[in-house]
């Protein structure tokens, strides 16, 4: 139909304006088709109506006894309706566990309660306070692989967030495993070693200067004696 109409107009030399207008219309149609095809790429296969989180595990956090380790975790709202929820800790008790597995008392999440809307992101601080008398080693999980997908059997301590459409009684959420590698007491020379490692050039120059100054001082002394 369009082709036929096009031939008709092409044959008409007395109406150049109409021909130009027709060409413009065809361009617009082409652009529209391209835009529609591109638009299809951005239509999600299924709408997402749940809260998303940027971390599925907080495993192998490292710290010394008496230290507090902090980690940030972000939730993103994708539900068109406002959702209300909260964070809490959970210990999955397994027969034969020792006292290293339940570290729920070490964990605090700020803020604990939240409301979240579509497109909104909220950042939470997970603060793990390691007791001063904690022995070095892994706490909260039976292995360092506990943070990997499918390693549920190796997890013991979790943080959990859950929320529901505000006013609803049906919640959904995720379990996020937490484990801590408690390090042995740091050497008193550790800050010095760290400084040297981080400032190799400065340290090397300082050593050379000290040697040169020592040589000068010695020569001066020798001259005095001579």
């Amino acid at each position, binding site marked *: 139909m369009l082709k036929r109409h096009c031939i008709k107009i092409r044959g008409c030399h007395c109406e150049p304006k109409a021909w130009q207008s027709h060409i413009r219309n065809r361009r617009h149609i082409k652009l529209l088709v391209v835009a529609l095809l591109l638009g299809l790429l951005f239509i999600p296969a299924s709408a997402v109506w749940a809260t998303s989180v940027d971390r599925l595990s*907080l495993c192998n956090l490292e710290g010394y006894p008496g230290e507090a380790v902090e980690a940030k975790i972000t939730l993103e709202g994708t539900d068109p309706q406002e959702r209300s929820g909260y964070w809490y800790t959970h210990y999955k008790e397994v027969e034969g566990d020792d006292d290293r597995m339940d570290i729920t008392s070490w964990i605090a999440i700020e803020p604990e309660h939240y409301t979240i809307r579509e497109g909104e992101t909220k950042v939470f601080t997970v603060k793990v306070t390691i007791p001063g008398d904690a022995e070095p080693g892994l706490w909260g999980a039976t292995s360092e692989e506990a943070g990997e997908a499918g390693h549920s059997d190796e997890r013991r301590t979790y943080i959990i967030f859950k929320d529901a459409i505000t006013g609803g009684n*049906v919640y959904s959420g995720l379990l996020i495993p937490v484990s801590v590698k408690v390090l042995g007491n740091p050497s008193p020379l550790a800050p010095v070693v760290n*400084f040297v490692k981080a400032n190799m050039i400065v340290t090397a120059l300082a050593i050379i200067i000290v040697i040169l100054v020592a040589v000068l001082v010695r020569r001066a002394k020798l001259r005095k004696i001579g």
Partner: protein
Amino acid sequence: MGKRILALAGVLVLVAVLVVPMAVLAGNVATQSASTSSAATIEIRAQNYTAAVATITFPEGVPGATVSTPYNDVDGSGSPQAFGGGSSTPVVTLYNGGSITYTIWYNITTFTNDVVSSEHYLINTKGGDCANADAINQSVAFDADTTTGTTIAAGGGNEKDLYLKIVLNAEAGKTGTSTLTILGES
């Protein structure tokens, strides 16, 4: 010779003075390891597997009775949970909008006013049959995050059907509320 050494030392001091401001005092920096992929929770949806559900309601029953016709706020009381070959209808459906497979956990709180004595659940594959209320046979442990052992893969076509039933207590004229939580573990 002494002047040369002095000059060299002077140059080195100058270089050190220029470099020192760039020096960083390193403390004991703890290395943290954590996965960073974004993940969505399992959604609790209506019987059509699309609309999000806010509430589930069990209709009134006589004391001691088993109530197996709950309904959600989207489908309404006109479309409660139903049984039978080819026409089984769950009270709600579960959809994994994330990108990885989750193990499904639940937490159902004790009903207030001691209205309910026990609750059972069944998680079926999408469109799977639930012949009758007896098929809902997984006993609920109230007030505890409990794994179902069932996994749900990500994306459409992998949805699950959730069936619920409760047994009412013997005391009449009471109403109680509870919350249902569905959790995912990677």
